[in-house]
């Protein structure tokens, strides 16, 4: 498959668009007509050809433009990428994981040629052809984690594992749903999840941590998470809330279909072999409400989920004020008929 890369923006004039192909493969996150937290982990194995679950690191039509947006965010705010000194080895683990996977799964786009520790990496979409020495930082233009995540869609948290906990000790975070690496760096799993409502009482985090501590080499896991974003913004960071927060007030029933986006995160978890750290890629997919309701099952279900979502969750996800209007708009696409189980469109 050769991907036609879009030339589009995630700021300013917001020219981001999903093609028919991207809409059909969108990772719709609701498998039933209601939503509550769960440790909804499953093995990250190749599933459903063409879907975002097929490859280890999904590459889609937004790749080149997303990487341009990341470069812009980093130019404006270098603290979006940080790595504590003991995490360099984990950064190299990540270089190996991503390069090997992309070269294997997208041979028309990426090539990796190894001669011992001398590696040549070819990234055709971004026009990169670099030769470097594996495990020698002086041979790359950036640290290893920064180098490879400037070329890979999604945010990345590198979590050190020690004292029966996980520690946010490195990351590349430019497409986040309102959290800050600069704030969270050095925190443990319970500390960085402290703001999440309800889940603590439900014991979700104790169970989730136990699961994550036991993720083993060769057995990655994945889950979906979601929120709402007005305008196709990748960078909804606390650092820039003054720029995007007020956009939520521009929403009307008339512009709902084009402005309001469902934001879905494909979160994956891999054990890294040399450092024994975990890498937590958080890949963001955006879809406008207008595009989403072209799949009738998704339109009906999204209406029911948003209508019935507990108030704390709508507040935490930042759309409590707009919810009544979102529900009103979505109700046009809910004829009350039953929806089938699972996340996939019915015509498949």
């Amino acid at each position, binding site marked *: 498959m050769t991907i036609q890369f879009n030339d589009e923006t995630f700021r300013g004039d917001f020219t981001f668009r999903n093609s028919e192909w991207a809409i059909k493969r969108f990772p719709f996150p609701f498998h039933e007509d209601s939503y509550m937290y769960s440790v909804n982990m499953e*093995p990250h194995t190749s599933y459903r050809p063409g879907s975002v679950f097929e490859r280890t690191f999904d590459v889609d039509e937004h790749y080149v433009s997303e990487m341009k947006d990341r470069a812009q965010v980093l130019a404006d705010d270098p603290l979006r990428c940080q790595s*504590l*000194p*003991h*995490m360099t*080895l984990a950064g190299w683990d990540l270089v*190996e994981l991503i390069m090997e996977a992309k070269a294997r799964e997208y041979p028309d786009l990426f090539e990796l040629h190894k001669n011992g520790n001398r590696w040549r990496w070819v990234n055709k979409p971004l026009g990169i052809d670099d030769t470097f020495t594996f*495990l020698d930082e002086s041979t790359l233009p950036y640290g290893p984690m920064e180098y490879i995540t400037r070329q890979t869609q999604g945010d990345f948290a590198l979590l*050190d*594992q*020690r*004292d029966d906990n996980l520690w946010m000790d490195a990351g590349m975070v430019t497409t986040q749903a309102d959290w800050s690496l600069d704030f969270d760096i050095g925190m443990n799993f319970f500390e960085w999840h402290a703001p999440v409502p309800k889940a603590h009482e439900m014991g979700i985090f104790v169970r989730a941590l*136990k699961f994550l501590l*036991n993720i*083993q*080499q*060769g*057995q990655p896991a994945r889950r979906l998470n979601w929120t709402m974003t007005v305008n196709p913004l990748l960078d909804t960071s606390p650092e820039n809330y003054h720029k995007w927060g007020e956009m939520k007030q521009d929403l009307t029933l008339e512009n709902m279909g084009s402005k309001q986006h469902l934001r879905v995160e494909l979160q994956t978890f891999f054990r890294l*072999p*040399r*450092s*024994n750290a975990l890498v937590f890629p958080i890949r963001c997919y955006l879809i406008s409400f207008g595009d989403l309701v072209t799949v009738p099952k998704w339109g009906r279900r999204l209406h029911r989920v948003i209508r019935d979502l507990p108030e704390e969750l709508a507040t935490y996800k930042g759309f409590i004020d707009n919810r009544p209007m979102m529900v009103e708009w979505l109700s046009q696409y809910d004829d009350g008929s039953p929806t089938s189980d699972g996340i996939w469109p019915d015509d498949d």
Partner: protein
Amino acid sequence: MSAGTAKLNVTVAEVKPINDLVTRFKFVRTGGGDLPTFSGGAHTVVEMQDGDITRLNAYSLMSNPADRGAYTISVRRDDQGRGGSKFMHTRVIEGMEMVISNPVNLFSLDLRAKKHLMLAGGIGITPFMAQMHQLSMMDGHFELHYSVRTASLGTYAKELSERYPGKVHIYHDDQNEAIDLKTLLANQPLGTHVYVCGPKGMIEWVHGTAEAMGWPREAVHSEEFLAPASGKPFEVKCAVSNKIVQVGEHQSLLEALEAAGIDAPYLCRGGACGQCETNVIGYDGKFLHYDHWLTDEQKAGGKHIMPCVSRFEGKTLVLDR
């Protein structure tokens, strides 16, 4: 599928007796190709087909983690044990095909440490061998203190002294040499992490001494795999699978569940990692908890058991499996 059971098909490339008690085994991937990289301190679970019994024992990987061509382990023969080490010593030969797990690390280096102080007793040397390989490639600062019974039973002591001159200190029990732990700990630079692997008594001694001297708990690391204890046979009812399982005298509860075709997760099979923790639905009798995982309250509570090492005596035990 059970966690931690991603399997590797390997062929035994070398069986080399090291001394009267220890034999070294080298595995290469069957059919060729690289094995996964691993981190120093990782172990692999080796499957042994011993007649009708499948034995699964965890052994630390001791080879250079960067060498993806082969893994090596060293096995100390335990004549009092349930047969795993005896199987390795007497039945495993070069050319034999075996199945091992992907590497799992429950004893990893804290890469923040300014210095790594390693304390090994006997066969507890093996995880440190991989860690020292890893650290010497990264120019890491380490020092090994290794206690052995006699010079002839000092597995790898001579080669390690030669490989890392000035960093390896050997203590012979038969010459009344012993690690002067208090002095050693008192003279470490700030930011030192201590690692201990060896007999239970040694691990407790290191933790106790370090704690008494004010060392932070997070700076002292240990690994001890327990071998499952033998005991009286008992019967267990598995509510989910609706099966009644008999646990034999020399069989662990986990092994009995597996033999009955019940999927039970595991990683270390030695009471340390917590993976196999199983909920107890009901019981009439007494638990024999041998693991390091459950808290004392949990052990007293009668709601959980670690089937890899712990046992039961009494009339009925019903598990959520």
